[in-house]
């Protein structure tokens, strides 16, 4: 047979290239932000503030990792904030009202996340509900349960050591809770990138039908994704409880907006099939540093919200424009 000549145009970037470019862009944005705040205010570029930032990002960082998995499959998890709230309440209740030991209470708290994850997974993977609707529903239900359990009252007087754990860290440099976040992010990054399950997540997100025909158990993959996400939110909830030294039903309310923004800034597509933990974490840092810096500069929280929204839209716009340019 005649050998075919290569007439393929290589004008389109490789997927590798696209991801790398977005990462470069957002790292630059991050660097610019840091420089801006360092110059703009005294208290920003200090070790103490660095410690604060790491404390502030712990909870959101963990749920961002969870949201990354979900968004890559083409779904979305709106129940994250509610899970955090309910987890703090249940865990605190176990310790304060039932006198259970800390490890047992934590286990039960994690179970909360898993149960809601299972609920989401059943609705979305096996009953075919759109993720938006399913998690909107589970969010409402979970919020309600969190309020009903103690009539909306906060639970305090947690055992000694909990709040200390949340405050302390290695030296004055890295808080304990940030270490947990970093470990989770790292492990999940490896998981997503180097295991079969990670591949299935990208396969289901990029084309569920094709994935199914290729032999991927798509329903099982989707189900497990939401269970994993729920579990990770459970961990975030425990950490939140430590931070607040109590069970607060409305703790974490609305946090999923931040995790979704972080994933998208990091290059994730709400259509599925794209996204990375690295990018999402940079996105989370951008948003946390933005909030922290503006706070230090004394900017009111209303303006903070405005600016955060602008940065989100700006980062996604840049990503969209870059993709369009690559296709032409």
């Amino acid at each position, binding site marked *: *047979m005649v050998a075919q000549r290569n007439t393929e145009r*290589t004008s*389109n970037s490789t997927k590798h290239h696209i991801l790398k470019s977005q990462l470069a862009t957002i790292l630059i944005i991050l660097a610019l932000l840091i420089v801006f705040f360092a110059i703009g205010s005294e208290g920003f570029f200090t070790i103490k503030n660095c410690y604060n930032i790491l404390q502030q990002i712990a909870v959101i960082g963990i749920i961002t990792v969870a949201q990354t998995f979900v968004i890559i499959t083409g779904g979305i998890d709106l129940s994250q904030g509610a899970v955090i709230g309910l987890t703090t309440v249940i865990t605190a209740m176990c310790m304060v009202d039932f006198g259970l030991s800390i490890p047992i209470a934590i286990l039960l708290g994690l179970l909360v996340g898993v149960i809601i994850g299972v609920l989401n997974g059943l609705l979305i993977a096996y009953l075919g509900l759109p993720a938006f609707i399913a998690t909107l529903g589970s969010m409402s239900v979970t919020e309600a349960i969190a309020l009903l359990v103690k009539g909306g009252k906060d639970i305090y007087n947690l055992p000694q050591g909990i709040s200390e754990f949340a405050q302390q860290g290695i030296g004055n440099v890295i808080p304990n809770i940030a270490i947990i976040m970093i470990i989770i992010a790292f492990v999940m990054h490896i998981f997503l990138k180097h*295991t*079969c399950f990670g*591949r299935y997540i990208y*396969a289901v997100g990029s084309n569920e039908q094709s994935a199914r025909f290729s*032999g*991927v158990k798509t329903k099982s993959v989707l189900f497990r994704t939401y269970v994993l996400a729920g579990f990770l939110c459970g961990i975030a909830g425990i950490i939140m409880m430590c931070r607040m030294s109590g069970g607060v039903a409305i703790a974490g309310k609305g946090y999923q907006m931040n995790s979704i923004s972080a994933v998208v800034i990091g290059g994730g597509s709400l259509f599925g*099939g794209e996204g990375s933990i690295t990018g999402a974490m940079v996105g989370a840092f951008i948003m946390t540093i933005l909030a922290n810096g503006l706070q230090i500069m004394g900017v009111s929280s209303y303006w903070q919200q405005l600016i955060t929204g602008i940065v989100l839209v700006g980062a996604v716009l840049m990503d969209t424009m870059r993709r369009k340019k690559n296709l032409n």
Partner: protein
Amino acid sequence: MIEFRNIHKSFFGNMVLKDICFKVNPGEILALAGQNGAGKSTLMKILSGIYYPESGQMLVDDVPVSFHDTIEADAKGIGIVYQELSGVPHLSVSDNVVLGKDIKTKMHFLDFKKQNQEVQEIFDQLGVDVDINRKLGSYPASTQQLIEIAKVLYKTPKVVVFDEPTTSLTTRERKKLFEVMDKMREDGLTIIFITHYLEEIVKMADKCVVLKDGSVTYYGSMEGKGEPEIISYMIGQNIGNYYPKLVEYTAKDVALELKNFGGGIVSPCDLKVHHGEVVGLAGLIGSGRTELMHMLIGAEKHKYGDVYLNGKKVRIANPSSALEQGIAYINEDRRTGGLNLTMSVDFNIALSSIAKGKDNVVGTGGFINTKKEQELCAKMIEQLEIKCASSQQRALTLSGGNQQKIAIAKWIASEANIYIFDEPTKGIDVLTKSRIYDIIRELAKQGAAIIVISSYNPELIGTCDRIEVMSKGNLVASFKAGVEEHEILLAQ
């Protein structure tokens, strides 16, 4: 009348069209031929206003034009019937046809009565029986393609470009399309016709332009020209035998057997495939062939019967089971079910092997052995001659032919021993088609049992040891190699 004068176009320094010059007159059909990547689509996109030429001129009725967008091209009477269906499935056929050019009453409300009248007229002229009030999405792809044509005709164009219009059509629908094209030619329309089916060029075209690597290698009348000549202009030399030589590899033992198998539109049927045998499944679109195969691999539930692999009854509940049992199904639509186009070439090639847990890519604990994976993908790319600049490229940046090779590579990598090809050469260039036929025979030589579904009978005749014909959900006839096409057509 359309004329191209010295059109040049390049992308990122890559020259994709060089000095294109030719003319099409009213009342003429000009066929535009060439392999994938030769520049046909690019040239038509310039004509329709999607791209701008770097240099050179385009003239419509002897007047130089420069289109800034498709609306301007539209206004000048240029209509293109694309291969990719772009209708809105939730709207009715009638609404789809008038989309963008609605008919309004004096009060600026939509005039449905007049709209339906005009749309019905077009379909009557086309001789196509369609309920224009039904949702577009309820019609199969082949009918949707005819509706695409109606959509273009509704705008009463002066020039109509058909971009691979017959890929989803059955023999009967193809015939109808050619009748329509004939009529359009008589009515004085200017027609440009892109197709990979060379016999269609010979049958319909008055003139032919062949593109090879962006240049015109032939521009002239079709008088006395046949398929071999066109092929030689397309690739620069003679292709020799297009279909592989049929050597008998059929073994005695039965690899796959369906007993009383069916459900839905497929009546219970029996089918046997031996190791090393290539069995073709002929039939009209809608005859149930794809449905039968989907039930076999567990993508759809079957109601009756059983599947036997190497004499043992097996239960295949989903495509994942099919994969485990070594059954490969190469989907008829790369875009929706065959490939993950937004992912890289490597990703696609490795996917089924990973899903199967094959130790040529998967290590302990569910971790992927990246090195082995890269080796596997590189081997497949080399073996199947997949043309790509980098295996990290997104699959959608490759031509249709290369995409199909990736889809096939995915299953060969998974070490399947039963292959089901569903319309394997749809929308693919001549050379790649030939290569795929070779691959099919190669797999048979290695002992695989193969089923090929195709609506293009010559291809089945050229590659299969045996052809089963399916009609309205039943297996109605069986032919051995050497059958003539008309016999198959009669049975369909």
